[in-house]
Structure formats: structure tokens, C-alpha cells
């Protein structure tokens, strides 16, 4: 076990995969000489050289297209998108090319590429650099998608993503890069794709969260003496762990989902619909989604913090759910806004 920041865990995963597989290459904007704008590729250029670690021009469509071609022809490229919004100009390459190559070649070609992108609010970057945008990729069969929640998750899931024979999008909450934790490196530290991870035991309610919201859900669960919450880190958004989540909720009878994204069409909508349909009649309360409001991410510090679910708000929402058996209104209804 080594104590490290999440950005260091990302770099460690990249380095370990590059040591084990000469086909792994890394490219993106400022990832080589500068070691990445968030220091997630620090030291790679020095160790692996300029053929395998490359700075690209500001050309997301171009270098993600290159990743598709490189992956289809035998490399395992890892491309970095500095802010998830920059994927907007290159989405075709991920959703419509990479995600379809296996299908369109009757299995003859695979596309083992990894697209890493920083996501999320909390650091004052404004509404064009603070979204999560996971639903850009969630409606495109052929892709996999994971969301990191801390140093171990970063190390373990990224290694699996690079090894996976399919295109995998890795969403990295920017606000977590500086957070430290103990990390098991090497083979024992690898986390499989497609499996949710229970990070806290509990009886009264199952809280499913992902990314930066795992910490928020955990803090909320720790803060209450009135009820005990099981907390699940979904880890893989596509394909998500249906069996694991359904069996967890079957035990507690209550499902709360905490998401760092707008209410409408969030990833939790899918979980809520599936669990609600599967466990109708077994649930002891309506499924509760705790999300951001349907607004662009605000800039000012206080508003930005209010925009995202925080531990106090999550605790309060669960208190209300357990006390009334009904879905509490989100905070913005108290401000006279539509639910």
C-alpha cells in the first residue's frame, strides 16, 4: 500500500500498464512535456520516451480519431481529454466510430482505446468546464464507461480500462485529483469493470453513488445516528452492475441515488427505472434521486457548492424519506423553483 493523490494514482496506473504492455501509448494536450495539466501523466515521457508519450495539438477530433485507428491496428492508446466538454467536438470518434468498429467488422476489429476526461464542478471553472456529461456516452452500445471516486478506484479501474478490448471512457472528477488515499498497486490493486463496490455496510437504505458523490454519500451516512445506510460506488456506469444493485436494494428495501449532474436524464434515472421495475412491491419507499438542479453550473463559490449535493443535504433528504415514506422535494423547491 502506498499513500498517494488521485492524480498520482492515475499516473501510476498508466506507468504500470506501459511497463507491462509495449503497445500502450499515451497522448493528449500537454500530457508529455508538462506531465498533464492535472499532473496525471507526470514522469511518463521521461520513462517511456517520445514515441509512446506525445503532446497533441488542440485537435480533439483529430487525436481521438487517431486513437481509433491506432487501437484498431493493434496499439492500446490512452487519450486524455482535458475537460469533458472538449469531447463535444470529437464525440463522433468515440460514440459513432470506436463504439461501432467491433459491430461493423463482425468482430474482426477491436478498438481497445481508453479516453480519459476530467469532469465535474467544485473548482470554480464555470459552466463550460464543470459538467460531467456522462450521458453523452450512455446511449451508445459498444462503449464502456467508468467514473473514478478516489486513488484506489483510479488505479484499479484505469488499469482495467486499458486492458479491456473495448473502448472505455474514464471520467475523472477533477475535484478529487488532489485527494490522498492508500493505494494497493500491482495486480492486487486492479478493479474489474462492471462491478459495483460496497464501500459501507448499512440496513435502512442503499445509497448508490459514483465519482465525487461517493465521498458525499459516505459522509452523509457517517453523520446519522438515526439510520444506517449502505453505500455503493457504482464504479462502472456502462455496463452497470444491475445484479449487484438490485440484490443490495432488495435487502434494504430503499434506494437513494446521489448524482453530480442535472436532474433530467442523469445516470441515476436508469438505475431508478430498472430497480423500480424489478422490485415493485418490495420497495418500502419510493426511489429517491438526489441530484443537481437543471441549470448550468454556476461560478460563484457559495452557489457552486449549493449546486452540488453535499453531505448535509443528502442526510436531510434521507431523513425526510425515512420519516414520511414519501419523496422529499429538492432544495430548489424551497426557493420557489419547479421540482
Amino acid at each position, binding site marked *: 500500500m502506498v499513500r498517494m493523490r488521485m492524480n498520482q494514482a492515475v499516473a501510476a496506473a498508466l506507468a504500470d500498464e506501459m511497463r507491462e504492455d509495449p*503497445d500502450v501509448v499515451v497522448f493528449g494536450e500537454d500530457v508529455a512535456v508538462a506531465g498533464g495539466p492535472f499532473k496525471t501523466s507526470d514522469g511518463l515521457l521521461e520513462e517511456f520516451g517520445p514515441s509512446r508519450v506525445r503532446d497533441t495539438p488542440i485537435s480533439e477530433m483529430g487525436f481521438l480519431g487517431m486513437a481509433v485507428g491506432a487501437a484498431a491496428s493493434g496499439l492500446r492508446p490512452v487519450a486524455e481529454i482535458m475537460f469533458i466538454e472538449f469531447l463535444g467536438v470529437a464525440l463522433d470518434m468515440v460514440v459513432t466510430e470506436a463504439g461501432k468498429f467491433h459491430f461493423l467488422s*463482425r468482430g*474482426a476489429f477491436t478498438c481497445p482505446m481508453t479516453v480519459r476526461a476530467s469532469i465535474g464542478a467544485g473548482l470554480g471553472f464555470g459552466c463550460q468546464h464543470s459538467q460531467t456529461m456522462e450521458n453523452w456516452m450512455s446511449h451508445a452500445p459498444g462503449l464502456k464507461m467508468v467514473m473514478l471516486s478516489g486513488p484506489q478506484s483510479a488505479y484499479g479501474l484505469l488499469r482495467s480500462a486499458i486492458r479491456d478490448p473495448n473502448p472505455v471512457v474514464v471520467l475523472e472528477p477533477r475535484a478529487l485529483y488532489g485527494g490522498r488515499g492508500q493505494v494497493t498497486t500491482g495486480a492486487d490493486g486492479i478493479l474489474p469493470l462492471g462491478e459495483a463496490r460496497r464501500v459501507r455496510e448499512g440496513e435502512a437504505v442503499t445509497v448508490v453513488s459514483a465519482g465525487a458523490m461517493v465521498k458525499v454519500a459516505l459522509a452523509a451516512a457517517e453523520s446519522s445516528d438515526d439510520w444506517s445506510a449502505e453505500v455503493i460506488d457504482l464504479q462502472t456506469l456502462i455496463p452497470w452492475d444491475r445484479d449487484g444493485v438490485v440484490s443490495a436494494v432488495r435487502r434494504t428495501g430503499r434506494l437513494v441515488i446521489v448524482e453530480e449532474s442535472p436532474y433530467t436524464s442523469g445516470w441515476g434515472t436508469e438505475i431508478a427505472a430498472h430497480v423500480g421495475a424489478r422490485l415493485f412491491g418490495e420497495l418500502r419507499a419510493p426511489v429517491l434521486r438526489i441530484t443537481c438542479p437543471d441549470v448550468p453550473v454556476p461560478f460563484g463559490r457559495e452557489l457552486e457548492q449549493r449546486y452540488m449535493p453535499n453531505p448535509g443535504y443528502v442526510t436531510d433528504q434521507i431523513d425526510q424519506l425515512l420519516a414520511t415514506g414519501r419523496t422529499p422535494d429538492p432544495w430548489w423547491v424551497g426557493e420557489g423553483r419547479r421540482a
Partner: protein
Amino acid sequence: MGDGQRMERRRAVANDRVARYERMVEIRAFEDRVQGLFAQGLVHGTTHTAQGQEAVAVGIAAAARPTDLVTCTYRGHGIGLALGMTPEVILGEIMGREIGCVGGIAGSMHLCDRELGLLPTFAIIGAGIPVAAGAALTAQVRGTDDAAIGVFGDGAANIGAFHEGLNLAAIWNLPVVFICENNQYGEYSRIDLTTPIEDLADRAASYGIPGIIVDGQDPDQTVEAVGAALAVARSGGGPTLLEMKTYRYAGHSRADKAEYRPEGEFERWYERDPINTFRARLESEGLLAAGAAEEIEQKVAARLEAALRAVEESPPATVDAMFGNIYASA
């Protein structure tokens, strides 16, 4: 047809100008047949045919190795046939049958043949350009002397992927040949209405790479140009942009009768029809004897009839094919 026969078709085009001529005749007859089948309502969906562009297709196939990966557009039947794919696997794909090269789940715009070097063809304009650069990156990182070929139309020269792909290939000196099939029309719009310069090859200058205009109606010139650019790429000389001036005889897709064409334009291009002029050259060189061209046409017609029968006997695409290749397993 098995792998060996597809490779044999490829070798024939690579080694023999008469075989190249025969393949051009096959492409023309195939495309005419496809248009006919659509007109009869025997196939659904859409299709994009490439009559008039046969010399570009055989030029690429003759110069490239099967290990040089090719990205190609949705107007890909001709290049697929030139590379060695058989009429039945392409027609089967167009008609949604199990015999199709992708099992009938992909359609006319999506052909693929890994052994022959054809990546899944691209139905998004320009997308194949950076993807070809990526295939070239693999050759460069691994130190092989393979190269990649990115084929696209004139319409793609105005999309970002063209500029980003050429720029990246240039700064990394990648072994890739970019081939613009300038058939004068981007979908329904004539090129001079969408593009402020006459020669797209000029755009290479922005990226510091050679931009060469090639007579896309002459298969001897296309083979030579692609071969020379590939030789540069293999020897570490970096990318080249080839602009092949050619002409699309049909409309953009099956619904388009191309009524927007100026009077006399088609006729002017047809005077330099790539098949007619190549036939005359081969005859004058004594490579095609009297009557040989007619024999080739009959042979090709019989081959296409047999292909159509094979496709008609093949069952529709299966549910297994639909679910079978969404995710690869490790």
C-alpha cells in the same frame, strides 16, 4: 469465396493491367446492377455508387499491400471490389443477407475486410482521415514499414477532421497517404459552391506536406501516384495528399437523380471515361486483342449473375449477428 480467392483477386489487380481493366469493368457493372436492384425495390435503405471513379479504386488496390490499412467512405463498393472483396459479399451486405461481409447487419455504407486491409468504411464524412493517421501511428510506433491510406471525397476537405488529421500526420511525420477522390460534388452540391479554391491539393501546403494532383481517370497514373506516395511514407518521408480529379456519374445516393448538374458536364467527363480510355490504350498496346473486351464484359456479367443468385439464396441477417459483436471479450 474463401480468403485465398480474395487474396488472388488482390494479387491480380496488383500485378496485371488487364486484370485491373477487368476489375474496373466489374465495378461499373456492379454499381449499375445495384442501382437497378434499388430501382426495382429489391433492397431497402440507401446506397451510394461510384460509377466513373473506377480508376481511383484500382489505383489504390494495385499499389497498397493488404497490411496497409485503408479507411474509405460510404461510397465504397468500388474500392472494396478493387481491394479483392467479392461481388457476393458486398451485394450480400447491401441486401442485408447473412452472406454479406458483415453478416448483413451493416448495409451498403459499411463494408469491411480485415485480411484485405479495409477498416469498416465510414458513413460520417471525414471521420476516416484521422483514423488512417492512427493506423499509421501503429506502424510508426511498432517500427514496421506498413503505411495507411485515408480515402475521402472532396466534401470532406471542408470538415475539421481533414485539417486536424493532416496536421497531426504532418507534425508526427506519419506513414500515411491521404487520397481525396474529388468527384466534383459533395452530396448534392457542386464543389465550387462550397469551396473557394479549385485544387484541394493546395491545402497540403498549410501542413507542410506534398499535395499532388493526379488524373483520377487514368488507372496507370493513379497506381503510380499511390505507389510513389506509399514509398515516401514507408521510408520515413511522411504523409502526402493526393487529389484525384474524377467524376461521379450517379447522384449522391439512390434518391438523387443529379438534376442539378450543368448541361453537358456529364458528357464532357464521359469523353474521358476511365474504362473506355484504358481499354483503347490496352488495345493499342496489344494487351487486349480484338474481342477480348467483349469477353471480359461477358465474364463479368456472368460473375455478377452468380453473385446475385448466391445472395438471393442466402438467408436474411440473423438475431445472433445483431447481438454477437457489441463488445469484444478479453
